[in-house]
């Protein structure tokens, strides 16, 4: 007791952080509060969580409970000061626990294996013995080569009754746990670097427009240091369905007024420039922009002459090489036909853009019809010409997630180290081996003793193999 009292404050804090109980408490607190955070939706409008709470605890309790949880920071708990504190305590605990045990383990790793007495070998968890006639020295070389065959490099020492080989493998694997612990710290460090030196923002960029800033959640501007333009945005669909196959944005990066980079990004395939990465995240229609949209057509005559036409709803074009003209008199962002075959618009977004074109031909009869961007079969004209509806451009915006995270490489490094650490910890082991050759009344005895700190079963197979090899050696030695 007296000794306890004399401990300095630092020692006591150290002991606290090194204690298993403290680790268990932190583990539990992080786990339990995290659970709350998955039920209470994070960073959403209060109504959502009020409904959740009302469902769980009744209408009357919900508002009080909400305000309590809100004050405690549960509505954005993973970034609250107390949660971050717990994560840091966890890191401290990890560091102290590891450092506390490291000297002992390092001693185990560094200390070379020594020869053992036969009594000790007989107490090993894995042991075999082989008897043969003759002197031990006669079989020395065979034994040594058998040990090498199972992957050990044996040392040799003289004993009273003969000699002993001893060897070990993978003593460093005892450090696997510490490598894993270290990797967690590296990942946390990377996360902190990302938090302080990086940012997360978004940018809704309409087709044809350029931006030099992105916006944080609160609306604050983040300067990019370069310009980015959305040249085009498109959704590909699976066949005729409305099921999206790909979201694609054609982006151009400008630096000092010069075009420096071009890329078509899609989900899972972002663009990175000067450490800032742009991810395809969402899309939408710029409000009240339909009348500004550019209709992009490729118009071809029946003898194959074609040209690109950029026009607007209400505009007209001529089929090349002819005097036939088409006038776009109607437009629908999402055209469908009801059972009676009447056209109607089913959505305000560009799900299935269509133009209605009235053709006048001085020679033949005038005709008209809907031409749909997604349905090439509507592009053919009755007189053999063709109007390809390429795009309705300038009304959509691409929603980009913009991120700068200098810590991400450190996080990845941590992940690689963690994988290595786990592999060493779970799939490798520190294996030790003693093989003693002793003479007993004219016969010689080979005694094998072995131990492994993990995966004993597979080591036992190796020892079985060694015993087999020595058995063969015995036959050869007769």
């Amino acid at each position, binding site marked *: 007791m007296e000794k306890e009292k004399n401990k300095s404050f630092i020692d006591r804090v150290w002991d606290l952080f090194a204690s298993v109980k403290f680790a268990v408490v932190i583990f539990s607190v992080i786990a339990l509060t995290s659970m709350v955070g998955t*039920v209470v939706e*994070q960073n959403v409008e209060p109504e959502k969580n009020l409904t959740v709470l009302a469902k769980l605890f009744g209408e009357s309790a919900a508002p009080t409970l909400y305000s309590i949880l809100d004050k405690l920071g549960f509505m954005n708990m993973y970034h609250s000061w107390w949660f971050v504190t717990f994560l840091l305590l966890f890191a401290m605990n990890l560091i102290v626990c590891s450092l506390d045990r490291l000297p002992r383990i390092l001693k185990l790793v560094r200390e070379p294996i020594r020869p053992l007495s036969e009594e000790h070998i007989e107490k090993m968890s894995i042991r075999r013995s082989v008897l043969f006639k003759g002197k031990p020295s006669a079989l020395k070389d065979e034994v040594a080569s058998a040990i090498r065959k199972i992957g050990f490099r044996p040392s040799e020492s003289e004993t009273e009754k003969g000699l002993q080989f001893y060897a070990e493998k993978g003593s460093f694997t005892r450090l696997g746990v510490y490598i894993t612990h270290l990797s967690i710290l590296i990942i946390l460090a990377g996360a902190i670097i990302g938090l302080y030196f990086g940012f997360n923002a978004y940018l809704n960029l309409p087709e044809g427009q350029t931006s030099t800033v992105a916006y944080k959640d609160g609306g604050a501007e983040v300067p990019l240091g370069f310009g980015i333009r959305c040249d085009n945005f498109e959704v590909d669909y699976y066949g005729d369905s409305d099921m999206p196959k790909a979201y694609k944005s054609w982006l151009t990066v400008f630096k000092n007024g010069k075009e420096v980079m071009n890329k078509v990004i899609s989900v899972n395939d972002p663009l990175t420039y000067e450490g800032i990465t742009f991810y395809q995240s969402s899309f939408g229609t710029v409000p009240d922009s339909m009348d500004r949209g550019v209709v992009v057509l490729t118009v071809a005559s029946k003898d194959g002459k074609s040209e690109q036409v950029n026009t607007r709803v209400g505009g007209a074009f001529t089929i090349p090489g002819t005097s036939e003209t088409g006038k776009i008199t109607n437009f629908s962002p999402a055209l469908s036909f009801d059972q009676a075959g009447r056209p109607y618009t089913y959505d305000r977004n560009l799900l299935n853009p269509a133009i209605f074109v009235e053709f006048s031909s001085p020679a033949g009869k005038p005709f008209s019809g809907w031409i749909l961007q997604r349905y090439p079969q509507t592009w053919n004209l009755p007189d053999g010409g063709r109007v390809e509806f390429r795009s309705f451009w300038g009304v959509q915006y691409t929603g980009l997630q913009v991120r700068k995270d200098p810590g991400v490489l450190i996080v990845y490094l941590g992940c690689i180290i*963690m994988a290595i650490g786990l592999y060493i910890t779970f799939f490798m082991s520190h294996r030790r081996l003693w093989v003693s050759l002793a003479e007993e009344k004219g016969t010689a005895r080979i005694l094998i003793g072995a131990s492994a700190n993990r995966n004993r079963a597979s080591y036992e197979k190796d020892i079985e193999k060694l015993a087999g090899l020595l058995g063969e050696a015995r036959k050869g030695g007769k």
Partner: protein
Amino acid sequence: MSGSASSVFFGISTIAYVLAMVLYIGYLAFRKKTIGVVATTVTIAGFLSQTLAILLRWKEFYDIGQMGWLRAVPLTNLYESLIFFVWCLILAYLVIEFKYKNRTFGAFITPVAALVLAFIDISGMSKNIQPLVPALQSNWLLAHVMMSFISYSMFAVSFSTGLMYLIVKTEKRNEPAYIFWTVMLSIFIIVLCAMGLDYLTFKFSVKSQEELIKGYLFKATFRNSSSAISLLSWAVSAALTFVIWRFGGALRKIITGFNISAETLDEITYKSIAMGFPIFTLGGLIFGAIWADQAWGKYWTWDPKETWSLITWFFYAFYLHSRLMRGWRGKKVAMVAVLGFVAVIFTYLGVNLLLSGLHSYGSQ
């Protein structure tokens, strides 16, 4: 797509696994070697049929998607992932049966497989092959999802053997570990039965196949519109828990009668977690983070799925550490192993069915 060749083989494997469950339990009860041999044969037949079904579905998906083999992995929705989970579980079980030459585990693992397959049917989840949404079009899909499910099945094995360990190791009825396993086993059986009843009423009374588990789970029992049935369900559950608690010792006698030592059970529990944990860390957490970084621009968002994976990871990390702690070996760590799998179930199903978040592919 329900008439395709793969679904026929899936059907065969489902029937085989349910039959195997009955046989393994029969084997446990009557201790006739013939029953055991038949049980193993039926399980292997079911496994082969399921393997073929998964490969056929892969092919069907490949033909529809036209995005290459890697992006046609049949692991893109809840139905497919559950099927793959069962496949891994049965494979792990067969390895254990042949390695340890003991069929006792079958009675504990085949019910998990049967429960999952029953769950698929009652939930009325879509079995159609759905084209990949843009977010899933990544080569990480194969590694991330497959490794996650391999680890889940390892954890399921550790759950079964951990539970068996507790059954073998506890003798007194007032022991916390005894109460723990009887309650866990009761909950397991009650949920199985309640879902079975849901299944029956679903088949005969509910017309709409569209109704998801969200609205339908336990409607035949605990959440019945008639409060009498609901109360009765609670009463029956309480009674069942009591019966299992009162006569649980019989189960210990049965298991110990099979020459299966507590040490073997502890070893299998540890080994499956020692295999599952690194696979889960790498495939589930690390590959998941890398993929999230690529697709969403954030490697970690505290999305419910991620958070629950982390909680699960904490559970098993705790299991691995507590084995090294004084006074924790044996029953206490076995309880951690059992609870760890409860966390797995919640990570896998609970999050998709009860909580919202970015990771919503699984609930489709």
